[in-house]
C-alpha cells in the first residue's frame, strides 16, 4: 500500500495512526477555515489589529522558545534580531527598491546572522556569561546600530524612524494594505513557522537541541557537535526573529528602534514562561494571554478614566502591576505554563468515555 506523501507509518501502527490522522486532518481544515475565512469575515478592524499584535508576539516568541525552551540557551536580547531584521527589510526596500518578498528574506538572513554573531561566545562560555552576551546584543544592536546608523540612512524622520509606503508590500498581485490583509498574511506566516518548528523538533536537529538542553555531556558522547548545534539554534532563532520583524514592518509600514527595546525582549521571555517552556503551543498561548491581559486592562481603564480623573496617566503603572501579578500568580499556580494545562485537558477529553 502506498500512503500519500508526507504521511508515513510503521506497519505496526498503521491502523491506529490512520484514523488519528484523518481526525487531525479534519480538525486542521476546520481551524484553517475559521482562521482564514470566518474571522476576517466577522471580526472588525479593531480586533483584527489586536490579533495581528498577538501574531507578532507569537512570531517573536517562537525564536525565544527555540533558544530557551528547546536548546536551553537563555536569551534576554531577542528584540535585537527582530529589530535588525525589520530594519534590514525596510532599508533594502527603501534604499534599493528590492521587492518585498526578497527583502523579507534579506531581513531574515540579516537577523539570523546577527544572532549567530552574538551567539559565537557560546563556543567558550555557558550560563550567565552567555546571557550577558545576549544583553550586549540587545543594547549594541538597538541602542547603537539601529538608532545611530541604520535609522539615519533613511534620511528623514526623527529618532531613526523608517517609513515605507504601504502599497509597496506586495506579493505578486496581492498588496498587503488593509488590516485584514495584514491579518491573513500573519496567519500564513504563523502557520509556516509553526509547521517548520514542529517538523524540526521531531527530526534530527530538534532532538539534538533537546539533548543539549537536557544533558550536554551525554549529547556530546552520542556524537552531537554541541557548538555547531548551539550556533545553529542562534541562527535559526534569529531568522525567526527576522520573520517577526519583517511582519511588524509590514503591519505598521513604519519601524523605529523604540519598538525593539529591552522590555520587549523580557516580554517575550515572559510570554513563553506563562505559555509553557519547551512546548510548541507555549508561545501561542502565552502570546494570546499576555496580549489579552493588556487589552483587558485597557478596556477596564478607559471607561474608568471618565469617572476617576488621572487614570490614563497611570495606565502604564497599572499595566505593569497587572503583569507583575500575572507572572507571579502563574509561577505559583501553574509553573509549567498554560500549555501543560492544555495538555492535561486534552488528555482528559481523549480519555473521556473511559475516564472513570
Amino acid at each position, binding site marked *: 500500500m502506498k500512503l500519500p*506523501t*508526507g504521511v*508515513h507509518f*510503521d506497519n505496526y501502527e498503521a491502523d491506529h495512526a490512520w484514523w488519528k490522522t484523518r481526525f487531525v486532518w479534519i480538525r486542521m481544515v476546520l481551524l484553517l477555515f475559521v482562521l482564514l475565512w470566518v474571522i476576517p469575515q466577522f471580526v472588525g478592524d479593531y480586533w483584527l489589529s489586536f490579533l495581528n499584535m498577538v501574531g507578532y508576539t507569537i512570531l517573536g516568541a517562537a525564536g525565544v522558545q527555540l533558544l530557551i525552551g528547546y536548546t536551553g540557551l537563555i536569551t534576554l536580547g531577542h528584540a535585537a534580531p527582530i529589530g535588525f531584521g525589520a530594519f534590514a527589510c525596510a532599508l533594502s526596500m527603501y534604499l534599493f527598491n528590492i521587492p518585498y518578498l526578497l527583502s523579507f528574506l534579506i531581513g531574515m538572513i540579516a537577523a539570523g546572522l546577527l544572532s549567530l554573531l552574538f551567539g559565537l561566545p557560546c563556543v567558550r562560555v555557558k550560563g550567565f556569561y552567555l546571557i550577558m552576551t545576549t544583553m550586549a546584543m540587545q543594547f549594541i544592536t538597538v541602542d547603537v546600530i539601529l538608532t545611530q546608523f541604520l535609522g539615519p540612512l533613511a534620511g528623514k524622520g526623527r529618532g531613526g524612524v523608517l517609513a515605507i509606503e504601504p502599497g509597496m508590500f506586495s506579493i505578486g498581485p496581492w498588496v498587503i494594505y488593509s488590516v485584514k490583509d495584514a491579518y491573513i498574511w500573519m496567519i500564513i506566516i504563523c502557520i509556516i513557522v509553526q509547521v*517548520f*518548528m514542529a*517538523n*524540526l523538533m*521531531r*527530526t*534530527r*536537529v*530538534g*532532538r*539534538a537541541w*533537546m*539533548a543539549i538542553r*537536557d*544533558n550536554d*555531556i*551525554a*549529547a*556530546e*558522547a*552520542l*556524537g*552531537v*557537535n*554541541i557548538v555547531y548545534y548551539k550556533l*545553529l539554534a542562534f541562527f*535559526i532563532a534569529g531568522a525567526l526573529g527576522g520573520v517577526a520583524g519583517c511582519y511588524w514592518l509590514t503591519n505598521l509600514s513604519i519601524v523605529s528602534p523604540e519598538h525593539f527595546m529591552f522590555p520587549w525582549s523580557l516580554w517575550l521571555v515572559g510570554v513563553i514562561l506563562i505559555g509553557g517552556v519547551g512546548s510548541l503551543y507555549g508561545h501561542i498561548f502565552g502570546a494570546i494571554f499576555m496580549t489579552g491581559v493588556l487589552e483587558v486592562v485597557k478596556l477596564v481603564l478607559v471607561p474608568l478614566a471618565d469617572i476617576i480623573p488621572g487614570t490614563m496617566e497611570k495606565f502604564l503603572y497599572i499595566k505593569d502591576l497587572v503583569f507583575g501579578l500575572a507572572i507571579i500568580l502563574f509561577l505559583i499556580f501553574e509553573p509549567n505554563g498554560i500549555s501543560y494545562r492544555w495538555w492535561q485537558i486534552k488528555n482528559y477529553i481523549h480519555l473521556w468515555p473511559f475516564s472513570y
Partner: protein
Amino acid sequence: MEWKREELRVEKEIGEPILVVENAMKAFGGLQALNNISFEVRRGEILSIIGPNGAGKSVMLNCINGLPGYRLDSGRIVFDGQDITNWPPHKRAHIGISRTFQKIELFGGMTVLDNVKLGRHMKMNTGWWDGGIYWGKAVKEEAKHRKWIEEKVFETCEIEIYRNRITGMLPYGVQKRIELARALAMGPRLLLLDEPMAGLNLEEVEDMTRFILDANEEKEWNCTIILVEHDMGVVMDISDRVIVFDWGAKIADGPPEEVQNKPEVIRAYLGEVEETYITRR
C-alpha cells in the same frame, strides 16, 4: 543458575589492538587518579577493569571518551591507529566509541524511542532545512532508522514495550537497559560500559549479561568492550582479560582466572567494604 564460562562463550577471534593507552597520567588537584596506566584492548575482546572504589576506573573511561575535564595530563590514547588523546568527545563518537555511564545519563524527559534515536544521531544526516520541511528525504530517513532501531536495538535489548514511555519514569533496571540500547544504536566499534550491573537484581543481571555478550559476539554488533564492573561473577564469566586498578595504578593484567588469584589483587581488595567485592551467584 550456575554458568560455566565455557558454555557462555562462543569461539571468536581476538584480533590486533584496537585501543592502546600509553602512560596515561591524570591528576585532580593533589590526587593522582591515573598513574602511568598502559594497556591495550584487542579487537573483539571483552576487557574488564576492576578495582576498589575510587581506583580510577571511571576516570579511565571518561578519558578514553574525552569528556570535558578529562583530558590526559600526559600519555597517549590511540584508537584504530589514530591518536585521539585531544579529540573532543563527539569526534570520538564518530570513529566508533560509545559508552554508558555509571550514573545513568539518559534524557529523562524524552521517550525511550527518542533516546535511542539520539543514539542514531551521527548515522543520520537530515539537516535543519530538510527536517523543517519534513518532506521526501527526511521522512524516508526517519522511517529507515526507526525500522532499524525496532529490528536491531529493541530486539537485542528487549525494550520494545517501552518505546513510547517517558524514560525518566521507568524503573532503574529498565533505564540501565535503555542506556545500553542508546549506546548500541550508535553502531560502535568500542563500547565502554561503566558498571552496567550496579543496582540490578539477579534476574536483571542475567539479562544484562546476555545483552553484553550479544553486543560482543553477534555479527551485526561485533563490539569490542571495556567493562568496568564490581560483580565478580559476571566479570569472571564473560571477560577475555581483566586488568586491575588500585589507587590509579594498574596492578594486574591477564586472563580472569590468573588475575583473580594474584596476591596483590587480593591485597588491594582487603579492607574494602564487602559489598564492592561481591558476587551475586
